[in-house]
C-alpha cells in the first residue's frame, strides 16, 4: 500500500486513527499493539510473503541485541550476537536484492550459462534491515540498551509510516517515544499538515515530472535534442526529489500524528553549493547511516590518505549499490565519490572564492548529470543520453511542448526546491486568520491531490494501436 492511494487515504488511515485514538492515552501498550497490528497489515497489503522475512529479521534483531547485552564482557558472545544480526540482515539483502544481479554479472563476465534466479524483492527490505542493523550495532557499541519487550522492537522496525521508504530511524531516536509518548493536538495538527504537503509533493509534482521524464528518457537518441535532454534531466531530478522528500514528509507527518518525532531526511539539496553540502542535505538518514556504520568503522580519515580514499570508494560504492541492484547505481555512487574527492582535495578552497551563484550552477550541473546516470539502468542508453546533453541541433522540440503542458508544476517545483516558499508559508502573524489561511491552502492542496489521484486512475480501454 502506498500513502498516495485511496486505499490508504480513505480506508487505512482513518481506520488506524480511529482504532488508535479510541483507546485512552494511558493504555500505551494497547495503542502500541494497534499500531503494530496495523503496521503488519499495511505490509501484508503490499507484500504478503515478505512479512515472514520481516518478522524473522525482527526476531533475530531482538535476540541478538539481548545476547550482546547479556554477554557483558564476553567478547566472543557479543561478536556472535552481532554476527548473527549481520548475517541475517545482510544475508536477506544479499539474497533478495542482489543475488540475481550478481549472478547476471558473473554470467556476463564468464559465459557460464548460469540460471538467473528470479527472486521477488520484499518491499522496504533496504529500510527495515538497515534499521534493524543500526539497533543491534548501537547495542553492541553500548550506545543504547537492548529492548526487553519484543513487541517494542517489532514496532520500531515495522512502524508503517517509515517502513517501506524511510526515513531510516535510529532506535535511540524513538526509543523513549515507543514506551512513553504524548499525542498532543498540536502534534496531530502539524502531522496532518506535513502529511498533506508530502502528498501534494508526490501527487501534484513528482508524478507529473515523472511522466514527462519517462517519455524523454525513453526517446531515441535521434529524436532527443539537447534542450529536451537537459529538461529531462531537470524533470527527473525534480521527480526523484519530490517523490522521495514527499514520501519522507508523509512519513514524518504520520509519525507525528501518533506521537513520534522522526528525523528530517531532506533539507533543500538543490540549493547546495558543493557536492559535500549536497550530501548533507540529500537523504540525510541514509548518508549518516553509512557514515556512522561503514565509513567511521573502516577508519574514516584517521588512517592516512590512501586508506581514506579507499574508504570513500567503499562507502560510495555501497551507497550506490544500496539504491538498486544495477551497475548504473554503483557508477552513480562512484561518480559522487570522485566528485567529493576532487572537492575535498583540489576544488574546496577554489570554490570558496567563487561567487555563490556560480557554486550553485556548478553543483546543479554535476547533480543533473548524476541523475542521468541514476536513471539509466542500461549503460548503452546512458551513453546516448549523455551525448544528447551536448548535442545542440534543431529547435527546442519536445521541450517546448513539456513546458507548455506543465507551466504551473515546473514553476512551483523549482520554487519549492528553495526554502523561501515554506518560509513564507510559515511566516506571517501569529493570528487566527493567518492560521486559517494556511489551513485553507492545505485543504486546497489536499483537494487538488485527490483530483490528481483520481485522474491517475483513468485507464481508457486500449483497443487500437494509434
Amino acid at each position, binding site marked *: *500500500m502506498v500513502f498516495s*492511494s*485511496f*486505499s490508504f*487515504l*480513505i*480506508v487505512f*488511515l*482513518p481506520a488506524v*486513527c480511529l482504532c488508535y485514538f479510541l483507546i485512552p492515552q494511558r493504555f500505551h501498550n494497547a495503542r502500541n499493539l494497534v499500531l503494530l497490528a496495523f503496521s503488519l497489515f499495511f505490509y501484508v*497489503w*503490499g*507484500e*504478503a*510473503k515478505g512479512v515472514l522475512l520481516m518478522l524473522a529479521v525482527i526476531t533475530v534483531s531482538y535476540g541478538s541485541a539481548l545476547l550482546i547485552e547479556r554477554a557483558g564482557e564476553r567478547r566472543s558472545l557479543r561478536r556472535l550476537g552481532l554476527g548473527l544480526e549481520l548475517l541475517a540482515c545482510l544475508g536477506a539483502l544479499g539474497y533478495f536484492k542482489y543475488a540475481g544481479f550478481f549472478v547476471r554479472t558473473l554470467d556476463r563476465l564468464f559465459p557460464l550459462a548460469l540460471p538467473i534466479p528470479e527472486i521477488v524483492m520484499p518491499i522496504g527490505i533496504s529500510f527495515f534491515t538497515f534499521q534493524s542493523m543500526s539497533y543491534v550495532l548501537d547495542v553492541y557499541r553500548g550506545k543504547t540498551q537492548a529492548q526487553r519487550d519484543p513487541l517494542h522492537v517489532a514496532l520500531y522496525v515495522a512502524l508503517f509510516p517509515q517502513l517501506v521508504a524511510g526515513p531510516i530511524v535510529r532506535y535511540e531516536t524513538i526509543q523513549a517515544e515507543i514506551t512513553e509518548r504524548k499525542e498532543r*493536538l*498540536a502534534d*496531530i*495538527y502539524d502531522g*496532518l499538515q506535513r502529511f498533506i504537503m508530502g502528498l501534494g509533493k508526490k501527487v501534484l509534482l513528482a508524478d507529473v515530472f515523472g511522466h514527462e521524464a519517462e*517519455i*524523454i528518457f*525513453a*526517446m*531515441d537518441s*535521434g*529524436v532527443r535534442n539537447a534542450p529536451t535532454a537537459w529538461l529531462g534531466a531537470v524533470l527527473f531530478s525534480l521527480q526523484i526529489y519530490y517523490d522521495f522528500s514527499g514520501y519522507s514528509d508523509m512519513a514524518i507527518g504520520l509519525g507525528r500524528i501518533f506521537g513520534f518525532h522522526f528525523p528530517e531526511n531532506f533539507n533543500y539539496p538543490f540549493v547546495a553549493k558543493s557536492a559535500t553540502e549536497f550530501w548533507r542535505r540529500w537523504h540525510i538518514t541514509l548518508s549518516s547511516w553509512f557514515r556512522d556504520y561503514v565509513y567511521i568503522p573502516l577508519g574514516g580519515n584517521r588512517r592516512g590518505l590512501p586508506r581514506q580514499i579507499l574508504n570513500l570508494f567503499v562507502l560510495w560504492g555501497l551507497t550506490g549499490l544500496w539504491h538498486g541492484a544495477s551497475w548504473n547505481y554503483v557508477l552513480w555512487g562512484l561518480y559522487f565519490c570522485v566528485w567529493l574527492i576532487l572537492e575535498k582535495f583540489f576544488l574546496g578552497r577554489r570554490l570558496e572564492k567563487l561567487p555563490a551563484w556560480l557554486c550553485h550552477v556548478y553543483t546543479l550541473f554535476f547533480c543533473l548529470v548524476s541523475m542521468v546516470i541514476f536513471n539509466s539502468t542500461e549503460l548503452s542508453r546512458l551513453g546516448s543520453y549523455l551525448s544528447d546533453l551536448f548535442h545542440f541541433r534543431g*529547435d527546442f*522540440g*519536445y521541450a*517546448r*511542448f513539456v513546458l*507548455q*503542458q*506543465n*507551466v*504551473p508544476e515546473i514553476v512551483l517545483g523549482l520554487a519549492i526546491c528553495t526554502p523561501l516558499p515554506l518560509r513564507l508559508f510559515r511566516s506571517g502573524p*501569529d493570528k*487566527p486568520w493567518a*492560521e*486559517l489561511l494556511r*489551513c485553507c491552502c*492545505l*485543504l486546497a492542496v*489536499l483537494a*487538488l491531490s*485527490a*483530483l*490528481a489521484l*483520481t*485522474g491517475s*486512475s*483513468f*485507464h*481508457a*480501454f486500449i*483497443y*487500437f*494501436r*494509434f
Partner: protein
Amino acid sequence: MQRIKQGFVLLLGLLAALFLLVTYLGRREEISKFEYRTLAAHPEFSKESLLDGSYFRGWDEYISDHTAFRDGMMRSYLWLRLHVKKQLLVNDIIISEESLLPYLGEKSFGSDDYAALGRDAVERLEPIRQAVEAYGGHLLYYGIEGQSVVFRDGYPPYLHTHVDYYENCAAAFRAALAEAGFSTLYAHDVFTADGGSPKRYYARVDHHYNFLGAYKSYEAICLWCREQGMEIPIVEQERLQIHPSEAPFYGAYSRKLYGLSPIEEPLLIFDASVLPSYQRWDNGEQTDAPLLQLPEEGAPIYYAAYMGGDMGETVIQTDRPELPSILIVGDSYTNPVEALCVGSFNEIRSLDFRHYDQMTLTEYLESYPADLVLILRDSLNYVIPGGNGDLK
C-alpha cells in the same frame, strides 16, 4: 488558535468518513462509459491470491475505481487541465483546432525497413488470394487512411507524428499489393474524387470515418463489384436519410475528455428501415439486434451503434438468392459498411480476427466460399501483424 487546529483535524476526519461512507454505500457502477471499460470487480479471496499479492492489489484497484464522486472528480481534474492549465494533451488526446487526435508518443516505431514490412504484410495475404481464386471468387482490399493521418496538420509541430513511418509503410504496402496484382481500392481516392477534402468523411472526435465516409466506401465497393460483373443493387444515399443523432456522441477521443471536449459533433445515423429484412447471428447465436442500435433516451451514443459494435463473427441472411454473398474482414471500420451491405448482398458475413479464433480465414473460406471477400483496413494497421493483420 486551538479551535482552528481542532476544527482542521475534525474537518479532515469528517471528510475521510464522508468519502468512506459514500464509497461504501454509494451506487456501484460496473462500467465506465468515459473510459469504455469494465471497472474493477470485488477481489476474490484465496490463499494463492493473498500470497501472490493479487488480492490486495485487487482491493487497491477496486477502491480506486469505486471511490466516491469519482466521475465528478475526474471531470473537475480535466476541467482544470483544459481551462486553467490549458494543456494541449489530455488523457492521451491532442486537442487541435479542427479535431481531437491521438497522441502517438515520442518513441520511434519498430523497423524502418519499410519495403520488407510491406512485402511481409502482402505475403500474409497471399494464401487468402489463392484460396479465393481457387473457388472463383473475388478478393478486394479496401484501404482507409486513419483519422489521425487525415487531420495530421492539427498536430503541434514539436510533437512526433511518426509521419515518415506511416507514410513509408503505407506506400510500401500499396506498392507490394500492386506488384502482387491484388485488386485494391483506396478511400483517399474515393473521398477526393470530386476534388474536395477527405476531412469531410472523417469523425473529428473519433478515430473512424463518419457515416458519409462509410457510405462513400460502400458505394465504391458496390461499383467495383458491378465492374466485375456482379449484378447488385446500391442503396441510394437519399433513401438512407443520413442525419445527426440527437443523443450526444461519445467518440473514442471525446469520451476521454469526460464530456468537456471543446470539439463536439453528432454521430451520423441513417434510416435502417429502408434496408431489407434479415436474420442475424452474432458469434453463432441468433439475435434480433438491429443494424443501428440507438441508445435509451438521455444516454450517449457511441460508434458501436453501427451493428452493435465489434463481433468476432456476424452472419446476416436476407433470403435473396439472386444476389451474391460477401465476407467482410477487418476491425471496427467494417461495422457501418456491413450494415449498408445488407441492401446489396444476399448473405453478409463479417469476421474480426481480434475476437474470432475458431478458424483461420483460409479454413473459413473452405466452408463458406463467399462471392466477394472484402478486406477493409485502415492505413495505420496495414503492416501490423496480429489480429486482422495476420490472415491465413
